């Protein structure tokens, strides 16, 4: 048998993401093996381990998976913090860890080691895609982000990517992660932008719950000619986008956007089985499952070294089309989608409608390891 450990935070605040991720992984394995759950004549067995979003548990469980359960490789986790804690374990046991869907740049950046591959996007990919979507001549952009690594890195990557688009950053605003009242931040942004000419956009980079988009919208930024923009999100969060028809940004996934057989199958099967569309992390989970099968096929065995050789530079199918593991940092390069929000009464959320697919080549994602 080939055993895969899915080590992820099944319980805790990211429980919803975790469910999607697991469903995606299983559907990915199923699709890639044509429903047999076998590759190279061997059965694929998935065991689950719950990190409870605790990095210490994550480490222990991954060590247990590699050491005691003797799995061939592991997939997960949801939280970047847990992922970072787990990275050295992979190195210590010399086994693969496919990171999905944790997004921190440093996973494939400064904390990278050669046993780490990542199918999910990283923060830079998000930021650069959004820069491509929002930039243009005579555009002034203010950013609003959480005041920690994710936010600051995101803005930095976004700022770099704006270079050459003609747009300029007018103001950067950072607020503590647990901020609930955005009046002050909004007032600061308004004060900084109200006397500028040209297109004025406020780009919000936000991870987790509590996206301030609608709160700032309630303060009527239109008075000063400021438009709000933000990246994509899971379906539940898209409900808030309904108030902002016409808003633009770039997203990682929305089930109606990618046009390819993999996605068609995913959407159809997901509706059939769960009576709902697949979401962000379902797509991500599926990508990881398909990457695993493809790697096993190409390597012809589950030996770690052979897998690494096979996977560096390997391209594989996913619900988002073809992805490629970049050899340098093992980050999966993938397309992103420039969207515009359309509102329909009988849909509970604002629909991100595709404006343009931002291809792998359109984005210059820095290598940071």
């Amino acid at each position, binding site marked *: 048998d080939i055993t895969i450990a899915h080590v992820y935070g*099944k*319980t805790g605040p990211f*429980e919803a993401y975790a469910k999607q991720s697991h469903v995606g992984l299983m559907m990915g394995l199923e699709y890639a093996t044509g429903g047999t759950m076998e590759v190279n004549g061997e059965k694929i067995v998935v065991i689950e381990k*719950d990190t409870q*979003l*605790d*990095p*210490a548990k994550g*480490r*222990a469980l991954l*060590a*247990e998976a590699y*050491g*005691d359960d003797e799995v061939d490789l592991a997939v997960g986790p949801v939280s*970047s*913090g*847990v992922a*970072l*804690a787990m*990275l*050295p374990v992979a190195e*210590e046991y010399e086994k693969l860890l496919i990171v999905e869907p944790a997004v*921190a740049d*440093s996973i494939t950046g400064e*904390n990278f080691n050669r046993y780490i591959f990542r199918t999910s996007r990283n923060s830079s990919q998000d930021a650069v895609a959004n820069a491509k979507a929002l930039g243009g001549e005579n555009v002034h952009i203010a950013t609003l982000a959480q*005041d*920690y*690594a*994710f936010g*600051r890195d995101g803005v930095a990557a976004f700022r770099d990517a704006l270079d050459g688009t003609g747009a300029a950053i007018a103001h950067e605003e950072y607020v*503590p*992660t*647990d901020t609930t009242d955005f009046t002050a931040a909004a007032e600061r942004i308004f004060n900084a932008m109200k006397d500028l000419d040209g297109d004025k956009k406020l780009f919000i980079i936000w991870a987790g719950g509590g996206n301030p988009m609608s709160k700032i919208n309630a303060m009527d930024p239109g008075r000063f000619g400021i438009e709000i923009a933000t990246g994509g999100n899971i379906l539940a969060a898209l409900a808030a986008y309904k108030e902002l028809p016409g808003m633009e940004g770039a997203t990682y996934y929305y089930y109606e956007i990618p046009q390819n057989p993999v996605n068609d199958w995913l959407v159809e099967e997901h509706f059939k089985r769960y009576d709902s569309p697949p979401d962000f992390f379902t797509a991500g989970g599926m990508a990881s499952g398909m990457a695993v099968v493809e790697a096993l096929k190409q390597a012809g065995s589950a030996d770690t070294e052979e897998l690494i050789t096979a996977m560096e530079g390997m391209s594989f199918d996913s619900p988002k089309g073809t992805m490629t593991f970049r050899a340098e940092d093992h980050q999966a390069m993938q397309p992103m989608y420039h969207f515009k929000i359309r509102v329909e009464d009988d849909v509970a959320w604002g629909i991100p409608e595709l404006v343009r697919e931002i291809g792998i080549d359109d984005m210059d994602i820095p290598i940071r390891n």
Partner: protein
Amino acid sequence: MLMKLISGDTPRSPILSVILAAILLSLAFAPFLFPGTRPLDTAAHICIFIILVASYDLMLGYGGIVSFAHTMFFGIGAYGVALSLEHMGRSFGAVAFGTVAGMILAAALAFVIAMFSLRVRAIFFAMITLAVASAVAVLVSQFSTLTGGEDGMTLKIPRELTPAFKFHDEKILGVRMNGKLLNYYMVFFSTLILFLVMLRMVNSPFGSVLKAIRENAFRAEAVGYRVVVYRTAVTVISAMIAALAGAIYALWLRYVGPATTLSFDIMLDILLMVVIGGMGTMYGAVIGATVFVLAQTYLQDLMGTASDATSALPLIPDLLNPDRWLLWLGVLFILSIYFFPTGVVGRLRGAK
């Protein structure tokens, strides 16, 4: 000799003595008795939590002070080592420096908080420590350039403490003689020594004054004890030991992050362990930490089995879903407060 070591504070119950001896032996020979990574990790966790919980008991059970900042001190110790290893390089010197620096910082912070709030109601102290601890947790995630923020930091500890270091080529009793084993015994002996030191402390004249203050602070003042000084002292000592535990934990885990050292969840775990074990007994820390860490590690597996077994019934499988393990831990928690108000140690002592 033995009496001196345990400061004349015997377990005072045959069953308790047997259990304690069993725990001591299991921990002492854990690498040989329970092969595998998870059991060893569990044993190390038990050790570290024994220190942490015992130092908390010093404050709670003996000082009568409720604090929610214990994990903060724990975290300070852990981050102290992490930062010094990061900036001073991979050496024992860095470890020592980080540990001492962490302990000093913890002591200073504990001192300030104590001066502020111990003059008033105990409840104040509880709430203020909660607020300060949460502020520190936020600060740690804010200063992400230094601390790695939410993501935490991975440590490069001295090679002698990692599996890569082999000091004997042959396996002995099926156990590899490598740095990990050394690391475990560092954890174990630190625990043993610190525990004995704390046991001595609570049985010293200082300890008896603490008891008096817990009973009637007003009268203790009138008799000539400076209550604030004693309370501050015990808070500071407890904070320093917690920081030390944090440093040890960081070395064992080779990772520090808010979730492993600063989170409120760990604070709750500590409270639970103290209560289950028995407050104001010191031995309660050993029992509490052992029971709790074992339950935490293996409860989910148990629930999965139970959920499958009841899958035909309505609602029950939902409640027994392994994802809901915290629900049951909460229930267990409430029940234990009702039915073991004096903790396991109190129970066993009463039953003799």
